[in-house]
């Protein structure tokens, strides 16, 4: 599980080694090898196409005088095939492609070239008009941090997508890692090992041992996954152009550590408490949704958070301990976050962690672990925060 993200790194690394020309994209690597190098003819019965500029056709599309000649040249192996633009093309939009054999990969590329060629000629064979048509407006978003006056160009893919990726990533790692606590305690109960364990260690030791061990494993997992996000653009950026735009800094990864630890301890403790109370894993799983609602709400509000990173709503979500581990990472990935918010967020988060861990430690009694009862989440949370006598 921890090493799954290494698979794309290994794949891209392997391709890098095999492919000598590092300027090639993955598409070029595969398509060029599969493609037939012969040109394709174009028989234009409508006289629509006036020009065959090389920047559109790449020299692959060549005008043919007639259908008969195109057929002869194709049969003679001088052409890969030919497109036939019928006289009623402007009414029907239909084209014919005549060739001896079908190759899906090359045809997709070639069809795009012909479409571009037709669009270019429909727009009067004017390069500027065509280019404007393909990109009629370029919006430039700028994010202004009221405190630091830091402006960032939102048109860059990394600026636009990075907060979404970081938010989703953090949501997943906090959810997955904290669920391991539920599963660990649930499995002890399901395997009926719990009484053996309780005859050797106290419930508190059991809880702390599990949260420490699983916390460390989850932290390593988070760092491997996040590290992959850092490494992927550097290793595969030349082959996957969209990745090259992402520049995930190491400092972003390092700043993730305290918020991940806080998020794991908070949700992991709650999951452990739930696992201790519920009679079995199935029953416990039914109640996890309610506990995870703040995180789910964060994902639902992701666009609002990213588009208005300094609004009162986002600031509240940044400080609220049940959403702060994820939202703070969203904020950090967007840009500068005021220092007081980072400090307040950490104080509130770890303060809540202490309260929840104490509450859950009291709740995880031998009696709860050995009996199991129908879990009511409201009652559970009340017990965690208000208190409950141990054993």
């Amino acid at each position, binding site marked *: 599980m921890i090493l799954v993200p290494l698979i794309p790194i290994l794949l891209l690394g392997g391709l890098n080694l095999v492919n000598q020309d590092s300027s090639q994209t993955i598409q070029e690597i595969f398509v060029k090898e599969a493609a037939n190098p012969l040109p394709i003819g174009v028989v234009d019965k409508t006289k629509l196409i006036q020009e065959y500029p090389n920047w559109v056709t790449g020299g692959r599309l060549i005008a043919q005088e007639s259908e008969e000649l195109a057929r002869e040249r194709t049969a003679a192996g001088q052409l890969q095939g030919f497109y036939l633009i019928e006289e009623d093309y402007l009414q029907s939009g239909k084209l014919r492609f005549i060739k001896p054999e079908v190759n899906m990969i090359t045809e997709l590329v070639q069809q795009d070239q012909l479409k571009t060629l037709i669009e270019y000629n429909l727009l009067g064979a004017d390069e500027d008009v065509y280019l404007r048509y393909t990109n009629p407006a370029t919006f430039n978003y700028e994010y202004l941090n009221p405190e630091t006056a830091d402006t960032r160009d939102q048109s860059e893919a990394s600026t636009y997508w990075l907060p979404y990726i970081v938010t989703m990533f953090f949501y997943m790692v906090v959810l997955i890692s904290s669920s391991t606590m539920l599963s660990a305690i649930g499995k002890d109960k399901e*395997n009926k*090992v*719990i009484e*053996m364990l309780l005859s*050797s260690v106290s419930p508190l030791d059991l809880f702390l041992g599990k949260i420490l061990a699983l916390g460390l494993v989850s932290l390593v997992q988070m760092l491997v996954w996040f590290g992959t996000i850092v490494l992927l653009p550097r290793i595969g950026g030349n082959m996957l152009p969209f990745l090259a735009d992402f520049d995930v800094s190491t400092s972003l990864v390092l700043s993730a550590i305290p918020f991940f630890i806080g998020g794991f301890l908070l949700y992991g403790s709650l999951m452990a408490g739930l696992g201790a109370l519920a009679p079995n894993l199935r029953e416990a799983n039914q109640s996890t949704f309610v506990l995870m609602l703040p995180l789910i709400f964060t994902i639902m509000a992701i666009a609002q958070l990213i588009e208005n990173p300094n609004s009162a709503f986002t600031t509240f979500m940044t400080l609220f301990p049940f959403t702060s581990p994820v939202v703070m990472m969203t904020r950090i990935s967007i840009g500068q976050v005021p220092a007081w918010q980072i400090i307040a967020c950490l104080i509130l988060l770890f303060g809540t962690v202490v309260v929840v861990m104490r509450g859950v430690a009291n709740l995880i009694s*031998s009696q709860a672990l050995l009996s199991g009862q129908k879990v009511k989440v409201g009652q559970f949370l009340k017990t965690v925060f208000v208190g409950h006598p141990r054993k």
Partner: protein
Amino acid sequence: MSTIHVKNISKSFGDTQAVKDVSFEVNPGEIFGLLGPNGSGKTTSIRVILDIYQPDSGSVEILDGPMTDEKLNRVGYLPEERGLYQDVEVNRCLSYLATLKGMSKAQIDKTLPAWLERFDLTEHQKKKNKELSKGMQQKAQLIAALIHDPEIIIIDEPFSALDPVNTQLVKDLLRELRSAGKTIVMSTHQMNQVETLCDRLVLIDYGKVLLEGGLSEIQDQFRTNQVIITTASPLPEKLEGVAKIEPMNGNFRLSPAEGINAQDLLGLLVNQGVRLNTFEVATPSLDEIFIQVVKKG
């Protein structure tokens, strides 16, 4: 000085009183039977002894004081509800449980093979627990309770799921441990095993102690003046001094008439020409005592 001293413990779960004012003592180097019908409070008492449950009132002294983390490592426990990590290999699971009892890896590596050998599990040690039969899992669970060489061994139904050969193996082991000075508390429904193994016992029902003491003391306490005889010739329908004759598996159980004791009865039988092969004052079985006491209690 007793090894375990249970003093007036009570424990309730909601409205249910599981244990009520229970007291008993377990002496060093003895096998002590903790008996009682299902739901009588045996398991709750054991959990209180092990500090898994805190009693509502009363206290438990173990090895001369309250239970501590260090003392927990000197106790071996085979719980009623057997449990091993089903998807984990036998040797890994046992090593982990031994680690929780404070054993080092070197100690485990030294000790575990001998235990696996003794319980005939060596060739199964790489199997997952779920691949073992119930009897094998029971033996693996016994290893988990004994591997750290505990001074006190608390075992709940140690013979369940074991065939006669393995039952004998465990009985021999328990006797051996007793000889080595270990204190053993055994909870079981198999009264014949209690009779052959236990030095003393306590009988609990509805959370209360109904009976406590040495095995022979208790049997004496419930002994009647009935006698069991085998004869070389058939018995007449009526005998002087005998109130009731009950045939049983080739023997006869005779209940003497009022005012006649076993000694008198022997003389009367001889005088009436009964040719006796054996004459034995009937000792009540624990089964009989158990049923009698529980019904009365």
